[in-house]
């Protein structure tokens, strides 16, 4: 989860990392009560990186100028996102600009300190300009000095920059971050350093152990219900693709194997979710059956999905409740699914997707028997033990649904024609 710039700067300020005097603007009229002096910079608070190009960052000289510009920025979507707030910040006279970051490298299993004497990094080929230091053992200040010396800094500047790296690291550990970045770190004529912009990415698996971050996340999800949440939560534990067969499984590997199998059998896999973890958008602790219920509803509300293929293997937590969740789901009124739709509009179909359930393992013996009793005259839901069989059934069902739909449309066309 990425924070907005003003939130990042609040954290930096708390850590003693130098930031400019600034004020949060919720409404253009807030600019009448400013505690900072002109000229100042107004910045749109959105997650997109290219704010500057899009016109989301402007320098203003007077109050009138500021209010008009603020109105303008509030109405300017950047990559589809409108800002909820703006940041008004003092201007800074930068002579040099650096890049600093701390990132968790999951391949090395260690945090890495990054630094560059240039702020505009070409990420395609950072080449020799980018310096890095792997924090092998417990952090100590020397790691920060090692980085700044590698960057070619000396004397007082080396000291002040490594001091910032140290504080960044403290923040990184304290808040369970995947990334903390300062870009740029400005240096003025007298050698003073100042953070002009920063980025913080919180690790999604750790959100719930920080009450204040969980609260921020809940607000963000609430606010972005109708837009793509993906921009903020950058990695669903699942695959979001457009296809007719939605997949739910109790492990990442199973999701992927099922997806491959559907593809190989000539089907089109759709949104696929791993229920083993909480969803990244869950800001409160969940149980497996909570996630199953939510997963079923998310897939059912996606009207491209014709069939939901469940693949559970081995064991799942609270297997008895699982059957009940499925029993309740098949009785649901499709109209109730509105709230799970990403665009907030009403579902176009009045039909729930068909369910194909693959259960393998002795732990599922009772569930298998119980679910078989729920089957209607069309033998829905289908419960099988073999994965290939389940995949084939799901693919056939999806094709059948398509044929039925086109027949229905043909009929409509014909009736229309008669009129």
């Amino acid at each position: 989860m990425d924070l907005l710039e003003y939130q990042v700067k609040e954290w930096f300020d708390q850590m003693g990392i130098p930031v400019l005097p600034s004020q949060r603007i919720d409404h253009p009229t807030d600019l009448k009560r400013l505690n900072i002096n002109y000229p100042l910079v107004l910045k749109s608070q959105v997650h997109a990186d290219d704010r500057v190009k899009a016109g989301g960052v402007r320098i203003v000289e007077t109050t009138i100028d500021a209010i008009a510009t603020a109105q303008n920025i509030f109405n300017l979507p950047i990559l589809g996102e409108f800002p909820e707030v703006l940041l008004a910040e003092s201007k800074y006279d930068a002579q040099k600009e650096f890049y600093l970051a701390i990132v968790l490298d999951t391949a090395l299993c260690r945090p890495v300190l990054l630094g560059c004497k240039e702020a505009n990094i070409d990420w395609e080929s950072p080449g020799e300009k980018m310096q890095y230091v792997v924090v092998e053992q417990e952090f100590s200040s020397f790691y920060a000095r090692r980085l700044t010396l590698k960057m070619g800094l000396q004397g007082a500047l080396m000291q002040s920059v490594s001091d910032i790296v140290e504080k960044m690291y403290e923040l990184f550990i304290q808040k369970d971050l995947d990334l903390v970045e300062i870009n740029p770190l400005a240096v003025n004529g007298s050698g003073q350093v100042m953070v002009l912009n920063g980025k913080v990415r919180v690790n999604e698996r750790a959100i719930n152990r920080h009450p204040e971050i969980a609260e921020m996340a809940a607000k963000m999800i609430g606010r972005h219900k109708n837009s793509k949440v993906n921009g903020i939560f950058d990695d669903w534990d699942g695959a979001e693709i457009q296809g007719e067969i939605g997949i739910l499984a109790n492990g990442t590997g199973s999701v992927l194997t099922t997806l491959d199998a559907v593809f190989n059998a000539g089907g089109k896999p759709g949104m696929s979710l791993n229920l083993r973890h909480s969803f990244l958008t869950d800001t409160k602790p969940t149980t497996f059956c909570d996630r199953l219920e939510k997963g079923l509803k998310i897939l059912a509300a996606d009207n491209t999905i014709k069939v939901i293929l469940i693949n559970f293997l081995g064991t799942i937590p609270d297997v008895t409740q699982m059957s009940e969740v499925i029993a309740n789901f098949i009785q649901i009124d499709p109209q109730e699914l509105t709230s799970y739709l990403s665009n907030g509009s009403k579902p176009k179909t009045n039909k729930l997707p068909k369910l194909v359930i693959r259960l393998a393992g002795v732990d599922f013996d009772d569930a298998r028997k119980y679910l078989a009793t729920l089957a209607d005259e069309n033998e829905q839901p289908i419960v099988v033990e073999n994965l290939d069989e389940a995949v084939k059934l799901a693919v056939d069902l999806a094709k059948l649904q398509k044929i039925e739909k086109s027949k229905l449309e043909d009929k409509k066309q014909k009736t229309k024609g008669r009129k």
Partner: protein
Amino acid sequence: MNLKSDSKVLIQGFGEFISATHIAQMKAYGTNLVAGVAPGSGGKYKYDLPVFDLVEEVILKFGQIDTTIICVHPYQVLDAALEAIASNIRQIIIISAGVPPLDMVTLLRKTETHEILVVGPNSPGIIVPGKILLGTQPSEFYTPGSVGIVSRSSTLTYEVAWELTKAGLGQSISVSIGSDAIVGSSFPQWLQILDEDETTEAIVLVGQPGGEGEEIAAQYIAEAIDKPVIAYIAGKHAPASKYWHQKGNVATVVKRDPNFGSTKSKLTAFKAAGVPIAEHLPQIPQLLKKVMSNR
């Protein structure tokens, strides 16, 4: 690695990922489960196991413990593991999923320098079919035999085992190293264990997108493994843009391939190493039979 059936085993925590069925299965398999640790429940019995508040109390009562199986809430995993290490337990299997990665960094700094084996997190553990079960692997999918399985996924580990069982191929040792972003033991460590294991004749490596564990494994197989290995990588048709766990700037900085972490990059690595690749599950036993008859 101590996988003898008389080695003493402890369970720390009775969280979401372990149930009465798992514990009954382990016992039925002959695993020497001696106790559970659940702070606040000391003195009680759960799943027919005596429960203690601290690991050191278990050791006072039963002597040195060989393996601990950690099933606490993911936020308590680090603490539980440190407690086990403090009590000199050398084998730690972490079942819990979703441990914050910085906790794993802290744990690995400690275990790497002390030669402690950590399996997981987000792992169903280890099974030696017919001998011992350490974790939550469903034993019904396994039969004793000579194929070793090392995998990163939980469910796929036993999905593959079942595929082998159905094709008449038994298994020697099966382990999932865990599918969280940062895990303890690596593919090469387990490939080495399986290479040295007398009952193992051939090895199946099961991978998925994310990280570079499979790429490192492919190179290691080419350099150091004598037994035949075949690979299966899930997610060939998953959206390619997804790196699952590893992404971002650091990959380009330390000059990794732009395909870093993708299924494609893993498949290329195995091809380069001359490791046969199964395209789908049923092909795994077919390939194994081929490589095993060639020997």
